[in-house]
């Protein structure tokens, strides 16, 4: 009954659980809890009645044997055995491991014990929270079908260039999940500065591996051996009307090609079919957009008519095809500073994606299946 014995001492000689007036019983209480822990281990199944009885017995005994035979920090006797059984009963063998991983993750988050890279990419958060949150959307809602994943190098860096569409940049998120799941490597995306000006969105994008689309950051990421994803059409592609779907817009100023040329990494063209139909853009409230400083305020058949419900993307069936890599390491030195060559390669990439898009559209049976 040693666990009951110690109560009178811990509460300053008074029986029971302390008065609550003393604010610092911590040292004594902890030491005593540690001592009490040892005998309790042997009989973890002891019921609460037994404990109460023991407590009364201890009072009768008077001065308990608070023998300091246990010193050093011993864990407080949390009933981990019971918790373990409960968790195993609820989630099964595998679930127990998952719950343990989650608890470890929570502890790391609370104590700040995780690493960020210099771009602010938080691998821990991405792998444990962000990607699992997006995965149902990719697998269940859009039922993404991936082709040509072998065209992405398995260990070297590459620049993945894709078409942009769908009013909201969901195609970026989906590609990120697809690449992470099929290659096991994170896709580091390049995003517009508007993303980083927006609260929450900018914060989460950085933690999810995005950085500002400029040549310095792109080359830095590529030199460090990352897979980098870029959508060179930008807002022109994202916010184009539904009538112009699958017609590629101008590919920026070709900055992505010069970044790839300077670092000598291959360009992997990526064609995304299905993203155009998630929010069919039929109009644009231009005056309000100007007022808010955003590129466009979309009008879709369901937004803003249905309010927040209109924000749910239509469940189109997606096809993502990664094409043959275009090598850039065979160009002579200084090719990145030759605008004509850069424009030619940009056009080559754009044409490849456009042709693949047409081919995929021919194969598609319907928008939603």
């Amino acid at each position, binding site marked *: 009954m040693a666990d009951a014995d110690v109560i009178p001492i811990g509460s300053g000689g008074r029986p029971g659980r302390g008065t609550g007036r003393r604010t610092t019983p911590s040292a004594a209480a902890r030491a005593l809890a540690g001592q009490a822990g040892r005998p309790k281990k042997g009989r973890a199944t002891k019921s609460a009645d037994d404990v109460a009885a023991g407590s009364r017995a201890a009072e009768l005994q008077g001065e308990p044997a608070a023998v300091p035979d246990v010193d050093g920090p011993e864990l407080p006797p949390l009933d981990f055995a019971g918790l373990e059984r409960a968790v195993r009963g609820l989630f099964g063998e595998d679930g127990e491991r998952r719950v343990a991983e989650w608890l470890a993750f929570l502890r790391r988050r609370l104590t700040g014990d995780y690493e960020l890279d210099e771009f602010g990419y938080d691998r821990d958060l991405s792998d444990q929270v962000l990607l699992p949150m997006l995965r149902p959307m990719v697998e269940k809602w859009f039922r993404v079908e991936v082709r040509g994943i072998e065209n992405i190098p398995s260990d070297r860096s590459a620049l993945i260039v894709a078409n942009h569409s769908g009013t909201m940049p969901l195609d970026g998120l989906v590609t990120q999940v697809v690449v992470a799941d099929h290659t096991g490597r994170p896709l580091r995306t390049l995003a517009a500065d508007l993303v*980083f000006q927006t609260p929450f969105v900018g914060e989460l994008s950085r933690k999810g591996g995005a950085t500002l689309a400029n040549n310095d950051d792109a080359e830095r990421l590529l030199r460090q051996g990352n897979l980098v994803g870029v959508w060179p059409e930008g807002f022109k592609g994202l916010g184009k009307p539904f009538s112009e779907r699958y017609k590629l817009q101008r590919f920026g100023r070709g900055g992505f090609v010069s970044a790839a040329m300077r670092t000598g990494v291959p360009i992997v063209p990526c064609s995304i079919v299905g993203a155009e139909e998630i929010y069919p853009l039929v109009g644009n409230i231009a005056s309000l957009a100007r007022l808010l400083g955003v590129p466009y305020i979309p009008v879709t058949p369901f937004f803003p008519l249905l309010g927040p419900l209109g924000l749910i993307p239509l469940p189109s069936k997606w096809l993502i095809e990664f094409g043959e890599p275009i090598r850039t390491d065979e160009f002579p030195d200084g090719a990145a500073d030759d605008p004509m060559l850069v424009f030619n390669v940009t056009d080559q990439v754009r044409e490849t994606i456009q042709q693949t898009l047409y081919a995929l559209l021919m194969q598609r049976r319907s928008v939603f299946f």
Partner: protein
Amino acid sequence: MVTGVSRDAGARCARRLAEDPSIGTVLGIDVVPPRAELGRVRFVRADIRNPVIAKVIAAEAVDTVVHTGVVATPGSAGGRSSMKEINVIGTMQLLAACQKAPGVAKLVVKSSTTVYGAGARDPAMFTEEMAPRAIHHHGLSKDAVEVEGYVRGFARRRPDVCVSTLRMANWIGPKTDSPITRYFGLPVVPTVLGYDARLQFLHEDDGVEAIHHATVNDLPGTFNLAGDGVLSLSQAIRRLGRPTLRMPSFTASGTAAAVRRARLADFSPDQITFLTFGRGVDTTRMRTEFGFEPKYTTAEAFDDFRRSLGTGATTRVSSLLTAGLGALRG
């Protein structure tokens, strides 16, 4: 000659230089006598905003000038106008005096990474060649940019002088008293809602060592100095175990004013943008050309600083909870 020695950083740099037997006399300059023990450093009470400084340089035959006298906080300098006076006019006078002194062969300037500003359009890592994207119109940031401008002008006019400009990340450590350390010392740390800044720190010992390194070696140029790795602001506060108060950005300046009035910490608008967007600097050149290896990474420097603070409320609550649990179970 070291300027700004009655401030903590200047005093420590001067002491470090005085400890080196290869350096002859170390002259400390400031307007107020230093509170700290300076050891072998000879203190000269002079104002760098005054042409008298030229006479000091000539009379003492100064060959190396270490300029650490740039003030970061308006409060400690007696107001923003006085701070600007010290930073900009002081630097101008000092450089004018150096230009007239043929004996001066080296100038080391302690600058700051605030010259890059902070904003949403920043690249992830600034190299020394990059220009700031977001220009600040007030505070230390503007002063530092102007100081560096005058230093560049001086380097152009006196090509025989070896000029090292050290752009240092925020110093942190148990002995540093700066707006940033005060900020992390607040019982509840306010941050801007929806943003999480990337921060880099330089341990105070590394900062002093770097000044010494630049003084004893001939390393002309501009160098970024920072510990390896980055911490996000939320991560740093979690490591401190302090509660965070996330407030929308439009309340930030009001909060800063309240904190300033309560004399808890001294915030300027450029520090608020820094704590909103953060900043990272590339330190490749620090290793290759400057030949300096900081002893502490950003995270280690922050841990060293954390140990000097008391435990935060979150840590206390959790330990109290543990104790309470223990007592209950006992």
